[in-house]
């Protein structure tokens, strides 16, 4: 009974239902190899959603993650072009992503500018910087070294490295959220910023940390994205920030901050990933895709609101017994 009420359980059921529905039209979709591929395809969304989750938990929002991803991806491709070895590139993009996140975080923390305004600005700035770096030129597959492109695709124990990275990050973020003071501070700051001050938690500093985390993950994803799709240009992942926010919302991360779980977030990303992947496969006209994902988002929001509705105070004894 209680299990059924939890948001995560409802979402898990929804995903299973979705898979069953797709399988009834296209059995090949639920073959383990294909499911693994779907997971791999959803990995960028999962990674970004985990970072966004931290930001949303602290009552902020980061609209610049996709631009951050694109910039870091481009820098990764440029570094590869300059012959820099892959491990250095990885460290560099994560650091760059974190720095871009830190820039957002600094503006939010020190100047108290609302995060939506800051990241609305930086999303265009970060993309613009890519243009300035390259003059708008693309970097194509043939301009990338084989090692650079191969890393995310290398299959280890049946799954590509990209999927393993996603799994590792999910585990790390779960540990961070549940077991470290910083993770709990995300919840505290979003749940009751006023009270957080009284407990010695700096609201601004915690929000800053969330932006740095989201930025670092976006940076890492930037490399993975560019290596996987073997192309880098100004507009990669354009509009992806809204998918990321939608994944968090579907996963039950309260947009007002302070509530949500890593499991929910990952399932929200998977749900959206499955829809986006499955629609072309099951032969639904491409023109229907957008409306269907829109409707799915709305239904998910309505569901979450239903299960999140506060039970209210119960004063009457008889009512207490009934529930």
């Amino acid at each position, binding site marked *: 009974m209680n299990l059924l009420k939890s948001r995560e359980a409802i979402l898990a059921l929804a995903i299973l239902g979705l898979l069953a529905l797709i399988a009834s039209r296209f059995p*090949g979709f639920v073959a383990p190899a294909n499911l693994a591929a779907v997971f791999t*395809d959803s990995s960028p969304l999962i990674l970004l959603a985990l970072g966004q989750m931290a930001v949303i938990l602290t009552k902020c929002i980061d609209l610049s993650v996709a631009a951050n991803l694109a910039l870091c991806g481009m820098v990764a491709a440029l570094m590869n072009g300059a012959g820099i070895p892959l491990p250095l590139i990885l460290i560099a993009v994560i650091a760059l992503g974190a720095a871009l996140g830190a820039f957002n975080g600094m503006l939010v923390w020190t100047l108290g500018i609302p995060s939506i305004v800051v990241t609305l600005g930086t999303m265009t700035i970060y993309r613009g910087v890519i243009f300035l770096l390259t003059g708008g*030129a693309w970097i194509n597959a043939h301009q990338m070294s084989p090692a650079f492109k191969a890393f995310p695709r290398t299959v280890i124990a049946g799954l590509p490295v990209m999927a393993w990275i996603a799994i590792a990050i999910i585990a790390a973020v779960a540990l961070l959220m549940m077991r470290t003071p910083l993770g709990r501070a995300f919840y505290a700051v979003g749940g009751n910023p006023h009270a957080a001050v009284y407990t010695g938690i700096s609201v601004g500093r915690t929000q800053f940390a969330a932006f740095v985390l989201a930025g670092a993950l976006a940076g890492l994803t930037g490399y993975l994205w560019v290596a996987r*799709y073997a*192309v880098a240009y*100004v507009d*990669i992942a354009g509009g992806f920030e809204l998918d990321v926010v939608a994944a968090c919302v579907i996963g039950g991360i309260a947009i007002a901050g302070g509530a949500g779980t890593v499991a929910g977030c990952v399932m929200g990303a998977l749900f959206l990933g499955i829809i986006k*992947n499955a629609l072309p496969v099951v032969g639904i006209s491409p023109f229907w895709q957008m409306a269907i994902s829109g409707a799915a988002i709305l239904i998910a929001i309505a569901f979450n609101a239903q299960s999140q509705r506060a039970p209210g105070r119960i004063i009457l004894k008889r009512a207490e017994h009934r529930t």
Partner: protein
Amino acid sequence: EDMRIAIVAKALGIGFFEAAHKGAEEAAEELGDVEIIYTGPTDTTAEGQIEVINSLIAQRVDAIAVSANDTDALVPTLKKAMQRGITVISWDSGVAPEGRQMHLNPSSAPLIGNMIIKLAADHMPEGGQVAVLSATTTSTNQNVWIEEMNKVAGDYPDVEVVGTVYGDDLADKSYRETQGLLKTYPDLKAIIAPTSVGIVAAAQAVTDAGKIGEVNVTGLGLPSEMAGHVSSGASKSFAIWNPIDLGYSATMIAYHLAKGEATAEPGATIPMGRMGEVTLDDNTEAAMADPFVYDASNVEEFAEVF
């Protein structure tokens, strides 16, 4: 004073248009008294292109040569340009006749339509299924080519065109749509991608799915971007016209029209320097040249050029 000719791309940063820009500069040098303004919106939207064209009108350029993001939406703005005495032509991706003086097709649509299906058919002697990966649902030229392709599909009875998907000229979406195709049609023999973004993404997806040799990716692409995929075998051959020539020709035509040395009316001939001359049809359209096929034998050589 120099004549100012604006070359308007669908969006800045796309290799194809950068190459066309090169050609335009070449023409300008040859003509001597021409200044090229190469510009375009950030992303492939009609609204963005209109803003760009408005600022070109304001600068009173002498001619605008545009590759349109939308056949119809640019018409009112371009009409205004013509009213203010600016020569307007479209090239590559056309504008409806009332919005331009003439349109320069890179090649003729029937030729391209036939070429792309022929490229696929050539490498599947037993016949089989092919699918199309297009750009956006609103891209004028892709739609025309696919239409022409379907018209001649009867000439290739063994080839079954199973469907069209849209990658929106985004690498990741094209990649995912290709994955979808490979899953939906396990027996697929070829993918036709008449777009330079789509063909690269499709080749990459086929490579990643380990289907090199089973699925041939073909269509229209740039040699520099496709060289790797041709050598890996993901693509046996593809076609394209030379974008440098296209930019060159568009500039030449715009120049002659703006100078009043030629008029844009059905049946008229307009010179275009080293590319010879074109004759306008009843829609005041003209085709520059035949598409040219690239395969393992020549792709490396052209990869250096564009």
